[in-house]
């Protein structure tokens, strides 16, 4: 498709040894681009040899389950970061949405003016928790686009507010034992975090679904293209007729939605909702997105990359636990890996130029 608009070529046709060289440089480039993926494979191989049971289907599934929460959060975060923003509130939204679900299961909705307590079915509770997450995202988006507050500050504010609301909901206490009661008809909550569909946990299915939908939206819809355009050059996007404010608002709502899903999974896995759950999850989500090649200055990033990033963080964490590395060292290693990955990312740009140069000459 591209041959007809080739620039006039200078120099002779490439002969066969040059072709080999070209292939070699393009292989280098491919390896560079897939470096996070390669790092993931190397990690898996490393832990497979050093840790017994690491490659057990069961431990793999448990690991994927752990990863799924961060992965779903990171998918929402990728939208935000690609659009040139940041969302610090997702961890607090995890806590808040878990508490909303816990409150509705444990106490129901108390309507004092009618003197009744309404208990909802689980699907309605899930829906309400998701709406709460989307609403927090909408507040973020509204404050950022209408009040012109920098995303960092706006979401820092909602982070505190959402965490505070989570604590208020039960005076700082946990809602334990969220199994529901058959006579009220609100049982089944633990299924989200503990249930299986064809032998694979529901949480993993949710991650796969979120990944597929997000991939589709980012690559195949005008909305996705608009997100990239806004992150790359907001003025140009505006002048191209993109409704920047509306798109940005949606982006933060997506992030809020993903955080709510994460919150439900966490609460459901524990069969309890704790107001402090989700603390610092936003940083893990940012780390996953950045590891996966998302640029914090906006405009660049892919869902696939983010998922790989989430897996690297997850495998590293669980692998070290299984190896018996101390908690404290785990934190240190995680920090080093994240900075190293971004440093390589910066280095890659230069290497890529060099590789392309060789290609040009070869």
């Amino acid at each position, binding site marked *: *498709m*591209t041959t*007809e*608009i*080739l*620039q006039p070529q*200078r120099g002779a046709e490439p002969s066969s040894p040059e072709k080999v060289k070209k292939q070699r440089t393009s292989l280098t480039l491919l390896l560079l681009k897939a470096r996070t993926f390669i790092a993931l494979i190397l990690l898996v191989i490393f832990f497979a040899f050093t840790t017994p049971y690491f490659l057990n289907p069961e431990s793999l599934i448990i690991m994927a389950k752990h990863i799924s929460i961060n992965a779903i959060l990171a998918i929402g975060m990728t939208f935000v970061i690609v659009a040139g923003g940041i969302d610090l509130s997702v961890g607090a939204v995890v806590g808040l949405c878990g508490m909303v679900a816990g409150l509705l299961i444990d106490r129901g909705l108390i309507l004092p003016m009618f003197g009744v307590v309404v208990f909802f079915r689980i699907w309605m509770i899930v829906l309400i928790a998701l709406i709460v997450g989307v609403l927090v995202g909408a507040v973020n988006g509204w404050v950022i686009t209408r009040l012109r507050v920098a995303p960092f500050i706006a979401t820092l504010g909602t982070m505190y507010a959402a965490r505070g609301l989570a604590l208020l909901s039960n005076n700082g206490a946990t809602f334990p034992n969220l199994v529901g009661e058959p006579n009220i008809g609100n049982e089944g909550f633990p299924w989200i975090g503990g249930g299986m569909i064809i032998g694979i946990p529901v949480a993993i299915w949710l991650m796969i679904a979120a990944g597929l939908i997000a991939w589709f939206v980012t690559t*195949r*819809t*005008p909305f996705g*293209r*608009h997100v*990239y*355009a806004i*992150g*790359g*050059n907001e*003025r*140009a*996007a*505006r*002048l*191209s*007729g*993109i*409704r920047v404010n509306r798109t940005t608002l949606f982006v933060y709502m997506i992030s809020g939605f993903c955080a709510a899903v994460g919150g439900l999974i966490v609460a459901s896995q524990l069969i309890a909702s704790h107001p402090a759950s989700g603390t610092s999850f936003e940083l893990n989500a940012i780390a996953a997105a950045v590891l996966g090649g998302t*640029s914090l200055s*906006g*405009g*660049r990033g892919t869902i696939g990359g983010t998922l790989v990033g989430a897996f690297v963080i997850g495998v590293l964490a669980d692998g070290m636990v299984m190896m018996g590395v101390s908690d404290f060292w785990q934190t240190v290693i995680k920090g080093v890996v994240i900075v190293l990955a971004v440093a390589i990312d910066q280095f890659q740009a230069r290497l*890529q*130029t060099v590789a*392309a*140069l060789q*290609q*040009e*000459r070869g």
Partner: protein
Amino acid sequence: MLDTSYSNPERTLITAGEISLNGDMILRAEHITKVFPGTLALDDVNFNTYRGKVNVLVGENGAGKSTLMKILAGVEQPTHGALILEGQPVKFHDALESSAHGIGIIYQELDLFPNLPIYENIFIAREVKQGLSVDKREEIRRTNDLLERLEHPMDPKTLVGDLRLGQQQIVAIAKALAQNVRILIMDEPTSALSQTEVTVLFRIINELKERGVSIIYISHKLEELLTIGDFLTVLRDGKVQAEARVSDVDLPWIIEKMVGRNLAALFTKQEHQIGSELLRVENLCFPRPGGGYYVDHVSCTLHTGEILGIYGLMGAGRTELFECLSGLHPEATGNIFLNKAKITSPEIEERIKKGMVLIPEDRQRVGLVPTLSVSSNMTLASLRKFTSRGVLSFKDELFEVVRMIKDLSIKVYNPQQSITALSGGNQQKVVVGKGLLTKPKVFIMDEPTRGIDVAAKSDMFQIMNDLAMQGFGVLFATSELKEILAMADRILVMSKGQITGEFKREDATEEALVTASAVGHGPIRTGGQA
């Protein structure tokens, strides 16, 4: 000085004896080759800089001027080749090294800090120190001296962001002078300057020459080069086409060397039929914060098949008028009728849908998303057309993009290539392509020829002509008299936000346009309109 340098036979020995004119050379670039991913920017280029002269470098967009300049300034390193400074080979790893050798550069996109005052800009990274602290008073004093010398006294404590573009240019020159340059590279220094500011700049250049400073001067304004230049090097497709003394050549010769074809074919205007009213603007007002108007009760009409030119000086309100038409300023008041139907929505998206699209003046910064590909940039304003049931069709998109690349003859080897890999002129064409893909009825172009070369200008004119022949309306603004007289069917002149003149092409003269554009700029500053 001029005579001695030519007649000194010893000094001419510095040249390698290839294509070089007799003269005292201070800096010579030898066999410079520069390869970028996807492009051979410079191909075995020899460039001579003569001492105390204005050495002009011309060429189309993408000819390699900017790259060569960056190599001379140490910003880029050549893939092959060497720099010979005063007969000694030198290697610059960065801009600081070249400036230590007395080479200064003033970029087209001024590298000033808008958030800092003038004096801090001038001494940035070269602060005058007193012990550990910056000697502010000394910096301010020297800044005053420099600005005095440039005949543009300004308060050194003014923030650069508060200055007009022309004043910023003066600051950039002052910054270079503060470093005691021997060689000063100027990239399109006049593109943002008014006529009087250009005169001042030329006087400064002559003064610098007298003090033995060698100038490397890059510009698209060819007439200007003939006035100010001493030596001339023409680049085309990364190769040196010719080197000559400016006194030996004329405009057609330069253009022929630059473009490889004759000028006559470049500015031809085909006849097009002017029809009924397409766009009517009534009482358009865009208030300026703090009183007054950017656009002051402007009314005008545009007909089908008409090319309407708007002439005016910088700050006359042309850009703001266009921005109001495109929907960028929802707070603007007044009525806009397209095909006699009133446009009510202030949204840019709606106006693009209805057929009004703006090609902004600063195409690279306002028109493009640097992180996206050529293809994605081009379809950004018309994605709707490639979407069915909410899903993008890559096939349809690619088809239209490839067609547009061919129509506009954009040099690109793959539509998925990053937009930043294209040369400036080709990037501009992508922005135009983006506008055309929205299928506009009214095509609004702000300074469509600013900063582009002769051939690309001719392409722009061709596009405008084609649109007019198809019965669309073209609205364009320029500060180039010759262009507006050549292209427009009708000319409106703006000054201080108001329309101060309307001319049919037959009746328009340069004098009349200039007079109308100066209305309200009289020597007596009353603050009001004339």
